[in-house]
């Protein structure tokens, strides 16, 4: 008995000691290794070539996609909202919540990544990538300021430096920034670059195409300011170097795996139809673009919804606008030609204006229908004797259906003269979009007080 006890006693001691050893050894710092807290699925850094397609996709899908395109095209009576939120918007009700996603995406998807790309390009001395980043920044800022007015830029994108409530730049300052970025970009893109522009889904790395696009955006920016300090000469001189054919259109592509935003909207929500107002305008000349802008309706024809009539039987957006593979358009050759036509017309160069106008319509037909219907051109466009601003803007409107520019052109020129829709909840058609909800909540001291979406932006005078 004693022996066993003794043995037990010895074993107990050994076991107790072992427990202490386990306790001490397990305290070894290896268990708490800070490396474990690095997310295995999120790289700490990425090369420029992985940022570029993300920025292009964000611009193409979000900035040129549903949240801004739908309300503005509805208000321009190019489309109509027949159900749910789209119907509400058709009656001019649009809330900060409606724009929250759009506003956020503009900064957190497009702008910040373009800025990071620009900074990385400077650091890595790759001027062409620097130029591409600047073009993308300029085009995003242009879209943003045209829709919202004053927006943050000088103070923006500095969350990492602790600036979480950026001040807003005036629209005029934003336009100065846009001009600076584009002229720097044109310079940067002209330089030799051993790295080159990789993974570019817009121009496949073609620096000359980027330069032409930068000129086109410069021309657009000058014209956008037509009512405040528009410089038509500068616009015309930019046009000289801008996109010179339909092949040079600045497009963001989509495919079956990642389909066009409006196509997806129609697939999942179906609340949009083409507008009767647009159909009336196009049918007046039997415009060949009708089957491309309007899908066949249930009767095999093309029909529009009268604004706010909730005509769900009207045509869906057609194959040019809403196929899976329809690209979204940042800026096109057709638009460049209409910019040229307007700038020339308003500076008295009517000959140049007329030629550009006819080339613009032809470019649009080529872009939309794939061919230029010479007979139709002859009947309706080429024989044009006396050009008017209205004709230019109306044809530009018909060329840019589904884009944001018709909303800007209407605000600048008042063309076409649209009437208030039945059931309107506002006394005028909106002239801007409300700032996103998040900005109102989280940056309340800096967001400019805008009484209503019918208030004009700075250049809309």
């Amino acid at each position, binding site marked *: 008995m004693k022996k066993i006890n003794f043995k037990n006693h010895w074993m107990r001691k050994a076991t*107790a000691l072992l427990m202490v050893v386990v306790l001490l050894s397990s305290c070894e710092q290896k268990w708490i290794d800070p490396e474990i807290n690095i997310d295995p699925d999120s790289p700490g850094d990425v090369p420029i070539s992985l940022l570029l397609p993300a920025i292009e996709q964000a611009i193409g899908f979000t900035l040129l996609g549903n949240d801004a395109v739908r309300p503005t095209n509805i208000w321009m009576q190019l489309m109509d909202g027949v159900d749910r939120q789209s119907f509400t918007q058709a009656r001019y009700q649009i809330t900060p919540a409606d724009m929250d996603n759009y506003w956020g995406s503009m900064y957190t998807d497009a702008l910040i990544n373009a800025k990071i790309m620009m900074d990385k390009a400077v650091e890595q001395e790759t001027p062409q990538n620097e130029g591409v980043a600047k073009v993308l920044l300029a085009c995003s800022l242009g879209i943003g300021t045209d829709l919202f007015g004053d927006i943050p830029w000088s103070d923006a994108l500095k969350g990492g430096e602790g600036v979480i409530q950026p001040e807003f730049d005036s629209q005029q300052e934003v336009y100065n920034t846009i001009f600076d970025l584009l002229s720097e970009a044109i310079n940067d893109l002209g330089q030799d670059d051993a790295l080159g522009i990789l993974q570019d889904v817009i121009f496949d790395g073609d620096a000359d195409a980027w330069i032409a696009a930068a000129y086109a955006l410069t021309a657009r920016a000058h014209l956008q300011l037509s009512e405040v300090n528009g410089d038509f000469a500068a616009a015309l001189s930019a046009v000289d170097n801008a996109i010179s054919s339909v092949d040079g259109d600045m497009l963001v592509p989509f495919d079956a795996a990642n389909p066009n935003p409006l196509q997806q909207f129609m697939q999942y929500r179906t609340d949009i139809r083409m507008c009767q107002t647009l159909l009336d305008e196009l049918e007046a000349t039997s415009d060949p673009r009708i089957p491309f802008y309007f899908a066949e309706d249930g009767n095999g024809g093309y029909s529009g919804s009268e604004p706010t009539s909730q005509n769900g039987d009207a045509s869906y957006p057609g194959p040019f606008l809403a196929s899976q593979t329809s690209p979204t358009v940042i800026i096109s050759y057709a638009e460049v030609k209409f910019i040229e036509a307007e700038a020339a017309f308003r500076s008295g160069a009517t000959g140049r204006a007329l030629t550009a106008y006819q080339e613009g319509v032809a470019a649009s037909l080529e872009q939309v229908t794939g061919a230029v219907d010479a007979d139709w051109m002859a009947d309706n466009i080429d024989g044009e004797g006396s050009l008017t601003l209205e004709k230019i803007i109306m044809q530009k409107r018909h060329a840019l259906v589904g884009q944001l520019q018709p909303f800007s052109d209407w605000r600048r020129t008042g063309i076409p003269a649209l009437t208030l829709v039945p059931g309107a909840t506002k006394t005028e058609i909106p002239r801007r979009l409300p700032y996103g909800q998040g900005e109102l909540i989280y940056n309340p001291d800096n967001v400019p007080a805008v009484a209503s979406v019918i208030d004009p932006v700075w250049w809309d005078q």
Partner: protein
Amino acid sequence: MKRFVFVLSLLLVVGINLMQAQGVQVTGNVTSAEDGSALPGVSVVVQGTTIGAVTDFEGNYSITVPDASATLMFSFVGMNTQTVALAGQSVVDVVLETSTLALDEVVVTALGMTRSEKSLGYSVQSVESEELSKANTSDIVNAISGRTAGVNITSSSGMPGASVFMTIRGAASITGNNQPLFVVDGMPIHSQRGDADNTARTGGSTVGREGSSSRSIDLNPEDIASITVLKGGAATALYGLRAANGALIITTKQGAAGKQKMKVDFHTSVGWEKVSQLPPRQDQFVQGFDGKWIGGNAYSFGPNVDTMSYDGDTDYKWDKYGRLVGQSDPSATGEQARMYDAYDFFQTGMTVNNRLGVTAGNDIASYYFSVADLEQTGVVPNSKFGRTNVRLNSSAKLTKWAKIGTNMSYSNSRAHTIQAGSNTSGVMLGLLRSTPSFDNSAGYEFPDGTQRNYRNGGGYDNPYWTANKNGVDEQYNRFIGNVILNFNFTDWFSASYNVGLDTYTKDTKDIDAIGSRNLPQGGMEEGLMISRIFNSDLLLNFHKTFGDFDASLTVGHNMYSTGYKRLYGDAIGLEIPEYYQLNNSSDNTTGVYRWGYRTMAVFGDLQLSFKDMLFLDGTLRNDWATTMPENNLSALYPSASLGFVFTEVGALKGNSILSFGKIRGSWANTANIAEPYNTVPAYVAAGAGDGWTNGVTFPYVGTTGFEVAGTLGGAELNHENMRSFEIGADLRFINNRISLDVSYFNNLNTDLLLSVPVAESSGYNAIYINAGEMESKGFELSLNATILQGDFGWEIFANWSTIDNTVLSLAEGVESIFLGGFTVPQTRAVAGRSYGSIYGEDWYRDPDTNRILINDDPSDANRDGYPMTNTGPMVPLGDTNPDWTANITNTFSYKGVRLSFMFDIKKGGVMYNGTAFAMNYFGTHGRTVNREVYYTPEGTIDFAKTPEENLVVFDGVYGHVADDGSVVSSGIENVTPVVLDQDWYQGQGSNFGGGPSAASIEPSDWVRLRELTLGYTFPVQRKIFQSAELYFTGRNLWLSTPYTGVDPESNLEGGVNGQGMDYFNMPGTKSYTVGLKLTF
């Protein structure tokens, strides 16, 4: 840390050298005072330790105590616990008195330590196996509902396996986890629905897909011996940072040591479930618009059905009777138009549950083995949940002073869930929006594979399509196991080591058939996730008695690691119908997610008691965690509690009116850590979306893309801090027949770690920082009374609690944080308000009186006599939290019959009835039936012809909104009668028409008969049975609520922080179960 370890090890080494004595064997017999019969199953525990034994069938026990002067504690359900100081005795026979109430129960506290409830300086509540077993819920969390105070449990719906949301004493974190820690036999386990439990297809959003179960559902309720709910910081301090939200200490059944024959328990039950409450639907107006029938139209604003007939066109494929036409139409067949009850869709669900348990043991070893199977079909056709459990708990003596125990459980949980929520394929969306003149049940698919629904193929899925063709299959194979070694080195020094693993694989398949409205091209996802938790606890216990003082010290060490890896393959655009393989599409995406962290801790717990009257308990714990910044990995925090049994003081002793009285107080300071991967900035796979569509992702046009993460991680993070304070009293009257327990608690959470949303112009959505303070305080009251004893027994058990959970502050410049819901409305955490407030749009109101403005300006676009939506910034619309909750259980017994029923009451709190608000727009809601209006030739309402019940005068004052946006109120009471017609319901009377969410906020109070059980125990049986019991249990048999939608115990996103949202939620259910329990 190094110094602490050094001191600790010095202590231990000294301790070992001092070891001399060894265990003493104590034996004895336990009998009942009432009839002298032997008492099997009595728990015998060495006070202040985890050493214990159980009496065998003859009431005999044998226990090795570390010290001949130890105190043994004998406890048994329904008997008064007795403590006996050994004082050198080796044979102790005990006679237990029947207690009126379980007076001094032994409870399992943190780290599995058994403590006398009397000695605790904080409040705990236990739920026993009997209650869990008969509640007959598949998830044990639902079975706890209504049995405790201060615990809030919400089931997301009545779907089989629906997730549950549980908080103890309110929320401690703003956006992080608020649910308690579950510990099974010392092993912390996964218990909730995690983010990773959603399929990848949900993206970040949970508003629009199926909800996974909470992982607490993997436990077999029958295996559980008891659950102790640890509520306050002092109770959970030893668990450290993972138990900031309280803890559920679950003890499973163990074998009984001693010479006894095998005991077999068999429990079988069958249950039926029915939908409890559904939103009312109108059955008077057919499909169409502006009073005209339009086939395939979205709305039910067509003509009155009484005026309609069919045209009898058999080629019209949407309705076998043909199109609807007016009864005087030449093509009318004369057949009266029909209306259909959409709710015929629901079926009676059924649950079959079989459980077998075997308990046995001898002097050396004992075991508990169980196997159980649950098969459940839901009220929605094809929804299913099933579970199979196997458990083996065994224990064996290694030597006289060492014991090994293992607890091993395997579970297989499988579910087929049907799409719910805000999604064009959600069952409730299609069902509630369907026009009553369309028969959904008359086929959901045409021979060509296209869909038959009320929208002529568009809009929403026919609910039968969704239920039959789509859904998610998920299967969890889970193993939870641990090994526990116990060593009794000397009479005053023992140790235990508990090491365990909780691991599961989740296998999912998510299907959208070709032709489904949310993915017309069809799609599917295969997912596989492997999750694991490793935990190791080493405890060293020291115990010594000095005269009237008793001291025990526990020091310990914990290592914990958790993580998962999830792989998925997604295919969109299927080629071959009904073939669900990834190779059935050219558009495949695959991905992998990984997540994990580790922690380590060293801790100590010192318990001192004086004369069984004064109890002091102090703990200290230091934690290290990988999720904190490298220079700030560790945190040290203390707790202290004091219990004073004042009825032990001379004059008060032996008083039969106040037979027992204790006051207690505790204080604790605990910490919590950051979520993983927030200490370094990162890039993430890019993608773009707009909230309407599936968006776009990468790979994209042959490229890969990354973008900077939306949440900016910071290196300067500190631990979250929680200071909790609690005082309370435990009073028992009239020989313990009535007991009353009162607690007041106050938790202050500071330095809360969260993703603070920031203005996105900063380039980020959110910044992860220490920001915010939240307070949770309240009272808890528990009453237990034995009104009648003897042949006819009557007991009452009641709980009442109120919790005030307020967000005190958020980060600089941040007033509000999104918790759940939609762009409008949403549940938010807002500084200065209750945690979980609903924000949304409101009507324009008189700025002085706050009364609703009723438009009086004939010149503006708003209709006169109606209120107007203010689309300005969202305003608070109500608090989702109740003012108080209560439950009361009455149990009557007469001989073998036992009847018990529990009422559960929730007072206060609101919910967004987005379902009704949307149904208005579609003209299907019951309230839209009073819509008919007749106009005079002048265009004003013809009061003579318009039915009076259709006229409404809005409560408010006249006013309007001026062109400059300012509010103009006349202050004059509105008396203009108006009609709630189609224009109203498609305008401001609904969410889609631009109506404010405020119009759809409803109180969600309730009184419900949560549970009713009627049981009969057969009188002394023949040889084969030791006992037999037949029972009936009903759950949610009766519900009274002002809420007009489904059962308000529901939430759109399931078990998450954003509560209070109802948007086409699945309905709740009531169930009826019959069961039989046999013991052989």
